[in-house]
């Protein structure tokens, strides 16, 4: 898959430059170096007892000692006294919010002349993401294709994306809800980054093995005190990734998945999941690749017209509304749309899966619906049809 927004000078994979090792102070120096280059640095922080992306000024703002436990319908973050900084899996917040804000004013027009004047977009200053997981980098790759790979691109997404500096941290602490290995997006980072770190926690202070993915990544690392990575460091990295793979929850069998779903649109399992699903849309809000937006025009008392764009969800009844009623009026049709889009028709539309296996939709579903289980239930009952045709279909 070609990179739509390649990191400048990146070779798509690490290895052109030998890896280095930095300590906690070196990690701090990386953040400071990015700031001195004019980047706004954003990374994981603790907010409302969840890992959340926010502006960071240095390593002290990172969630040191915090650990999570996640399961279907449940997310818990607890503090600890240890020095591990990246000892957690993703929270509800994702990189999506940084590049595709939940709400945006596109233009305003005066009541008299109705000339639309575009509102300057927020967040166009160069951004550096520090400490985001490989699944997040993969999610960006998917958004790149959706919002930047078609005939018409979202210009604001594209400008935020073009300048983006990515320092990813490989995953050593997946949750039981994670399944990046089966989606091929983690726990290691292969491409799409400027710097990729692996946190190695042994008896002493954590150290960070750093691989370079681009020229600007190399320039930043050059400014920081670092040691060449030893064979022992490399082995420790492999151990982190191997441990992550075994700690991961069960996965999804992706082979032939789009075809499986396409021939199971009438599988009775959709009725079964619909009886549990609340149609709340939490899953779409937390999903890092769900890109649906609605466009709304509003007039204030002075007659000024404003066009807004906001995150939308295919679980809203109005999402599919056409004159005469919603195309997908039932929870069954809406859950089916969501799941078959993510894992199936996304391929036809954008040439990639719509799921990176981050598990957010599983942990943040109030009733604990597990996408992986729904898929395996469909696979197990492949070919079964609903008993009666649905009434009211259009």
């Amino acid at each position: 898959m070609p990179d739509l927004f390649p990191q400048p000078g990146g070779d798509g994979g690490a290895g052109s430059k030998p890896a280095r090792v930095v300590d906690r102070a070196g990690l701090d120096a990386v953040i400071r170096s990015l700031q001195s280059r004019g980047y706004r640095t954003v990374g994981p922080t603790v907010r409302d007892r969840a890992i959340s992306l926010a502006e960071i000024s240095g390593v002290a703002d990172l969630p040191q000692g915090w650990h999570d436990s996640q399961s279907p319908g449940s997310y818990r973050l607890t503090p600890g006294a240890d020095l591990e900084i990246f000892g957690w899996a993703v929270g509800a917040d994702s990189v999506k919010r940084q590049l595709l804000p939940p709400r945006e004013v596109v233009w305003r027009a005066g009541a008299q002349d109705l000339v639309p004047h575009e509102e300057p977009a927020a967040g166009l200053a160069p951004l550096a993401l520090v400490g985001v997981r490989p699944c997040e980098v993969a999610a960006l790759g998917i958004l790149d294709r959706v919002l930047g790979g078609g005939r018409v691109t979202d210009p604001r997404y594209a400008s935020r994306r073009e300048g983006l500096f990515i320092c990813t941290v490989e995953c050593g602490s997946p949750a039981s809800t994670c399944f990046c290995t089966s989606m091929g997006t983690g726990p290691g980072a292969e491409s799409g980054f400027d710097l990729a770190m692996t946190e190695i926690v042994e008896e002493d202070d954590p150290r960070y093995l750093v691989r370079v993915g681009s020229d600007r990544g190399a320039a930043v690392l050059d400014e920081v005190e670092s040691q060449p990575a030893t064979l022992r460091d490399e082995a420790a990295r492999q151990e982190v990734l191997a441990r992550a793979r075994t700690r991961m929850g069960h996965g999804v069998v992706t082979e032939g998945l789009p075809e499986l779903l396409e021939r199971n649109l009438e599988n009775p399992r959709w009725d079964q999941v619909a009886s549990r699903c609340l149609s709340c849309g939490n899953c779409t809000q937390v999903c890092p690749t769900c890109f649906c937006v609605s466009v709304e025009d509003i007039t204030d008392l002075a007659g000024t017209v404003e066009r807004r764009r906001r995150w939308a969800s295919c679980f809203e009844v109005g999402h599919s509304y056409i004159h005469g009623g919603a195309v997908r009026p039932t929870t069954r049709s809406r859950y089916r749309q969501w799941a078959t889009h993510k894992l199936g028709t996304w391929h036809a539309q954008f040439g990639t899966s719509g799921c990176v296996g981050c598990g957010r939709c599983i942990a943040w579903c109030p009733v604990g619906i597990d996408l992986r289980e729904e898929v395996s239930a469909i696979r197990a009952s492949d070919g079964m049809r609903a008993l009666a045709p649905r009434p009211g279909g259009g």
Partner: protein
Amino acid sequence: MALAAEAVPEVRHPLTPLRYRVVGKRRETEDTVTLSLLPLDGPIAMTKPGQFNMLTAFGVGEVAISISNDPAADEPLEHTIRAVGAVSSALCQTPPGGAVGVRGPFGTDWGVADLGQSDAIVVAGGIGLAPLRGAIRALLERRRPTGKSHLLSVVVGARNPSQLLFEEEMLAWQRAGAHLQVTVDTARPGWSGPVGVVTDQLARAPVDFATAAALVCGPEVMIRYTARTLFDLGMPRDHIRISLERNMQCGVGLCGHCQLGPWLICRDGPVFTYDLEAEAILASRQR
């Protein structure tokens, strides 16, 4: 309203419309009007019959509306709009001289140019005749009856006679050589034409189904049955073109609202070939 021309910025956000002035307004039926529009600040790109624009009623909202004339003709852009809700009503109520916003053109077109000299049958239900009007005009331009057969057959269905669009113009199509069949779901006193669904009319259309091409637009059920009937009458699938409709918020593949299975209707349609895949997709309910 003070509507002076404004310089248009080089690069616009895809959700920013251009202002057009309403220079003509024709009432078609009780709830449907045709607006003639000329650019105030600058024109959108050249359009083809079957494509659509996103029209803004300023302060109310924006909806997808097909281009209803043949944009190749030297005349203002025309949109035929049925008032069914807030935005379409506001558009219909825009007075001559007022401004609407236009973004477009979007989507695939009827592909009239590649129909060559083969017979064509146009099947429309309700407001579905609007996106076909430009195609009919283009088809009449391109082909004159040879005397052998009617090269263009137009089959129109409406709920009742008062809902018929472009009545006078239909007579002009007939004079220009089109074969015309009009049917209504419910007759009114004075209606002498057929009563019933369009599919009942198809077999009587004087076209060679084996070689003809069809353009179909209307409610989705009507499209499904029409396409299937044409296929059963011997028309090859790849000669049947249908135009589909979904909720649309952007027109440019960025909002996700217009999905239908593997398609984004605004990007991959609205005009599709009725192939096996399309038939299967239309067969699944609530998709």
